[in-house]
Every structure is written in C-alpha cells, then in structure tokens.
C-alpha cells in the first residue's frame, strides 16, 4: 500500500482538452470517489494513472516514483473497467 499523486496533469486529444491541470493525492488505505458529469474526464484521468494513456503535461507519481514513461505492466497497479473486460477462455 502506498500513495498515488498526480500533479497538474493535462491530457489533450489533438486540439481537444479532456483533462486540464488536475491535482489529486491519495494516501494508503484511503477510499476516494471521483465525481463528475459524463465526459468530464474521469476515465481519462484513471487511464493516465494506469499508464494506458500518456499525459500531455504534468506528472503521475506512484509510491514516490515518477511513472510518466513507464508502461502499464511496470506500474503495479490495478483497474476495473467501466464495461466488462473478461479474458477469452
């Protein structure tokens, strides 16, 4: 159990800005709810923390280590998807 911190992260899809200057800090054992209308960038934020999306600006820090360039399999993190995602067989 360790901390997750995001510092001023921004995500742009071309011209479109999906997440802008988001800050968040989650301590070990803490339960956090990210609330917002549809399309406000919740999923995009989580995908950046998981490493499935690269940040345009800002840093993702997990357990005190900056993880911006690490691929998802190196981040030791888990995520549940909005829609089912079961492996075939």
């Amino acid at each position, binding site marked *: 159990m360790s901390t997750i911190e995001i510092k001023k992260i921004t995500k742009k899809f071309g011209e479109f800005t999906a997440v802008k200057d988001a800050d968040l800090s989650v301590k070990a054992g803490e339960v956090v709810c990210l609330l917002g209308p549809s399309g406000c960038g919740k999923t995009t934020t989580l995908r950046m923390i*998981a490493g499935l999306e690269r940040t345009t600006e800002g840093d993702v820090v997990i357990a005190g280590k900056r993880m911006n360039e690490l691929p998802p399999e190196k981040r030791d993190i888990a995520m549940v998807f909005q829609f*089912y*995602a079961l*492996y075939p067989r």
Partner: protein
Amino acid sequence: MATSTTTWEKLGFRKAFRVGEAGWGHTLWVALVSFIYFLPVLIIVITSFKVQNEALSVPAKFFPTSFFGLIPEQYVFTPTLENFTSVFSRAFTTGGAVESTGFDRYFFNSMFIAGSSVLLALVIGTLAAFGFSRYPLKGNDTYLFIILTTRMLPAIVVIIPIILMFRIVGLSGSYPGIIFLYTAFNLPFTIWMMKSFFDELSLDVEDAARIDGSSELRVFFKVCLPQVVAGLAATFVFGLILTWNEFLFALLLTGADTRTVPVAMNQAVAGGGIGVLWGLLAAIETLFLIPVFLVTFFLQNHLLRGVTFGTVKR
C-alpha cells in the same frame, strides 16, 4: 444436463437435429434446395465411375445398380474405377508399358502452393490487419483502399507485365514465384477480413491485460488472437478455395514441375480426336474436391461463427 458426444460429433459433424425439430416443411424445403444445389457435384461424382460411352449416353445413366430390377436397364451403368487409375497412370497402346501421368505431382503442387501461400498471407495479413486496426496511420483509410484496389483489376489486365517481371527475375515456373504471387493475391482479402474482426474486439480487454502485466506481444498472442480464431478459419478457407481453383496465373506462371491440377486437368482431358474424356475429367474433379472439402469440413464450426461474425450489431 447430459449432453453426450456421439461418435458422429467426435468425427467433426455438427450436432444432428431430428427432422421434427425444424418441422417437416422446412426440412423438405432444405432437402429440395440442397438437392438442386448439389446435383452438379453428384453428376460429376457419378460420371467419374463411368466409361466414356456410358458418360455420353442419352438419356443419362444415373444408377450404379438396377436395385434388383427396379430401375430400367437403360438408366443403369456399370461402375468402374478405370478413370481413377488412369488419372495417375496410363498405357498408350493396349498392352504397352504403363507410365505415370504425373498427376501425383500436380496434386502435391496444388496442395503445397495453395496451402503455403494462404498460410503466408494469413500470417502477414493478420499482423498488418492488427496494425491497421490498433495503430492507425495518417491516412489509414487511404492505405486500406489502395490495398483493396489491387483486387479490383481483373487478372488479365496485369498478367502480361507480371509474366515479363517473372521472366526477368527468373521466378517463372518456380515454386517461390507462384507462391509469392498467390500470397500477394490473397493479402488484400486477408487484411480486410482480419481488420474487421480486430475492430470488433473490446479494447478494454486488452487494456486490462496490459495493467495485469502483459507486454504488447503477449496482448496480441494471448488476448487478441484467441478471440479471432473464427476469423482466421474463415479467411483461411476462403483464401484456400480461391487459390485452389485459380487457373489463369497458374497456366502462365507455372512450369512442367510446378503445374497445378486445374492446368494439368485441362491438358489431360483433351482426348486427342475423340473429344473430351468426360470420365477422366470427372475423376480428376472428384479427387480435386476432396482436400478442400476436408479442410472446410473440419473447420466448419469455426466457419459458421466466422461468416456470421460482424453481422450482429453489438
């Protein structure tokens, strides 16, 4: 629920439905349509067991036995395996030495050339399709369209430049030559088919695998490929049938050693003055049917899912 697997199903047949399950009306209708559909095949198979004058007789002799006198004599022929033996060997004069017609070689050629080019196209095409689906380039659709246009030209338009190119680089009449040509010939179809299968997959499944620690290669082989097995099977069978039947390129680009069955068949049945040897032709065709039939048969469960895939909106 005890669903027992019968020997029938173990052999690869689909679960047989009893006649009553679809209703007699449907069953009879399907039987009628299948009969009309398969009648030409049936005629070919029957003809392959006839000698020349029986093959030509009018009215056609349809029955190999008279069923204990039930069928009038004029519709009954005496089955013979003569045609099948003369596919592979023949004697020029009665009593002369028997020599090989080379058809064993041609059958091998057909299987080797069609099999390897379709597999090659499947490997290259599946990788390309995955790329087109997951890592789109700028102008992705334009590339895909250009790939498709290579199949829009009739073969006859491109055949002469291809012959000249093959002559110059020395591929004419060789195995690599015809195999590469067929691979290129199959690629557009393979890429388009496989791309549509990859497009249908849920990206979340792949992301979940990435978070769980899979590398990109592992995602492709362990997560994506198992989901498109039906597509691979369908693409393989379609490609195989197309290549198996191909005549024009084979006629002009294969040599004596690399000749395929469709070309050799055309040359073998010209009976030299007595017209087409229908019995021999039918025997070659019957043998020619078997390999593709077997492949299609053993892949049928995948195939049925493969061709209906993508028609159902998620």
